[in-house]
């Protein structure tokens, strides 16, 4: 039985089709990412699961039961909000204990549970502070504890790391992953950062304009995108147009070729002119132009570097050229 399933779910706001006939199954215990550009409907999907929005059409099931007529407070899911949504008038402990208080637990019990949850997110000792006295990362963890203390069967996270800076973000990525593995809860999280989705999720759904274009493991969507949009959005792929691919391989279809798969070689199927070089630290990015198509190659440290204006030959392993369905 799926933890969450969508069956032809739509949510329209007037003319805007925020979510458009989406069907989806998320297994219990999965770490599931919703990835897509801004406005593609990810948040709306999450809100449909939580019950903050009601579908215009379709059926939403949680563990088999249709829930679209149930208000949020009757659903076994909890949410970590993008802006954390901590209650400013309550201290950290009371924030975490809020759900238990509503559920009618007595003061001592709920405070004990809250302290445990705070310990889990490594914030013991912060219980008496007001949320405004915490840093962004700490607030984020309080929000997490507040949701986890309810022991939800599904945890929803909306861009949980969006507001954090790079260092903190990497750290929280690791923590979330560890936590999910420990608790075995289904995590569904929304992001528009492909790196985050790829590195954290068991499965990724790529959204665009209210629809899901592809669902699969990070490796699948990265290496075997179904359509150019996915290839382009998940990592910055080179997209070779169909006529060029036809000439190179005989098949008339667009193809994706990852920048790190492109090699500058002595000889190869394609000749290109170097237009720009930039140093990225771990690698050097080379921008090339080949038969009117702009290509990017990533040269590992130690590889020979061409100069702008040079004409070079490009080679790749046949298996790296991924043919796609869409034009």
């Amino acid at each position, binding site marked *: 039985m799926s933890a969450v399933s969508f069956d032809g779910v739509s949510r329209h706001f007037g003319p805007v089709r925020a979510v458009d006939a989406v069907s989806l199954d998320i297994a219990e215990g999965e770490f599931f990412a919703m990835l897509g550009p801004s406005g593609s409907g990810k948040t709306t999907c999450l809100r449909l699961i939580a019950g903050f929005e009601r579908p215009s059409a379709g059926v939403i099931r949680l563990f088999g039961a249709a829930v679209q007529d149930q208000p949020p*407070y009757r659903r076994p899911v909890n949410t970590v909000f*993008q802006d954390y*949504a901590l*209650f400013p008038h309550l201290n950290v402990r009371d924030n975490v204990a809020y759900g238990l208080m509503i559920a009618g637990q007595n003061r001592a019990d709920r405070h004990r549970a809250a302290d445990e949850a705070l310990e889990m997110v490594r914030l013991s000792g912060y219980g008496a502070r007001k949320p405004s006295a915490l840093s962004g990362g700490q607030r984020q963890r309080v929000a997490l504890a507040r949701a986890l203390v309810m022991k939800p069967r599904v945890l929803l996270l909306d861009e949980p790391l969006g507001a954090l800076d790079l260092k903190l973000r990497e750290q929280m990525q690791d923590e979330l992953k560890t936590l999910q593995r420990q608790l075995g809860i289904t995590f569904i999280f929304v992001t528009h950062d492909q790196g985050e989705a790829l590195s954290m999720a068991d499965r990724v759904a790529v959204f665009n304009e209210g629809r899901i274009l592809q669902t699969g493991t990070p490796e699948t969507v990265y290496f075997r995108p179904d359509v150019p949009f996915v290839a382009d959005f998940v990592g910055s792929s080179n997209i070779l147009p169909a006529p060029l691919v036809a000439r190179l391989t005989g098949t008339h279809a667009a193809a994706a070729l990852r920048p790190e798969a492109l090699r500058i070689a002595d000889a190869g199927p394609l000749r290109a002119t170097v237009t720009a070089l930039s140093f990225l630290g771990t690698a050097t990015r080379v921008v090339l132009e080949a038969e009117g198509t702009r290509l990017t190659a990533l040269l590992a440290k130690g590889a020979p570097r061409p100069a702008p204006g040079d004409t070079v030959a490009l080679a790749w392993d046949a298996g790296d050229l991924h043919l796609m369905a869409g034009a």
Partner: protein
Amino acid sequence: MPSDRAPLSLKIAAGAGLLFLHLPILLIFVYAFTTEDKSYQWPPPGLTLKWFAVTWNRPDVWAALRLSLQVAAISTAVALVLGTLCAAAVSRAHFFGRETVSLLVILPIALPGVVTGIALRSVFHIAEIPFSFWTIVLGHATFCVVVVYNNAVARFRRTSGSLIEASMDLGADSFQTLRHVLLPNIATALLAGGMLAFALSFDEVIVTTFTAGQQQTLPIWMLEELVRPRQRPVTNVVAMVVVLVTLLPILGAYYLTRGTDAVAGQGK
């Protein structure tokens, strides 16, 4: 942040503006102590405290003060309820006519007081409602709604909608959310709005002249006294007390709403 040093001309202009706003009020304070009770002789020939005692012993002042306080209290209560409901509805959804509702709330202060006053009076007349304490309250509450509404709407706007969702997500129904999240968060704004509404009602004279029958609120009493003074310094004393008394709610409102951005809008 630009360099913080203001040009001298700006300082002078701003300072002169503030002086212009305050000197006339200070003047009343001085006149409350004058020994001359017949004319506006300047400078006052002498200073005395006796007018405070005289005022204290005037029953008509106390009656008017009591009425004003009652009217202001009840009007504020009504305005609090109506203004909060309206603000909640308006900030909740982009429903059709939302602009119209805002306009409707603003109308009673955007239209001149005489208009509001005479309109209400003609309705009372047509509906044969006799003038009473409640007709005064009706008029006051109508234009007080907007202050509460403005304060509440601003706070609702700053209180992120996800707070309500978070509460429901954690199992609270609408009423529990109202009690445990919404009210605590907008309480200071409501208090501030209520205080301003109180001050507004306490000071109102134009609408009141139309909606009061024989009742004298303090401003009406003052108006009568200004036009046909019996003991001018008594009016001055009352005027000074009124300024000091209205100052308190304003100070309160200021301290309640000051710096609340950080509290209610955290996370962004």
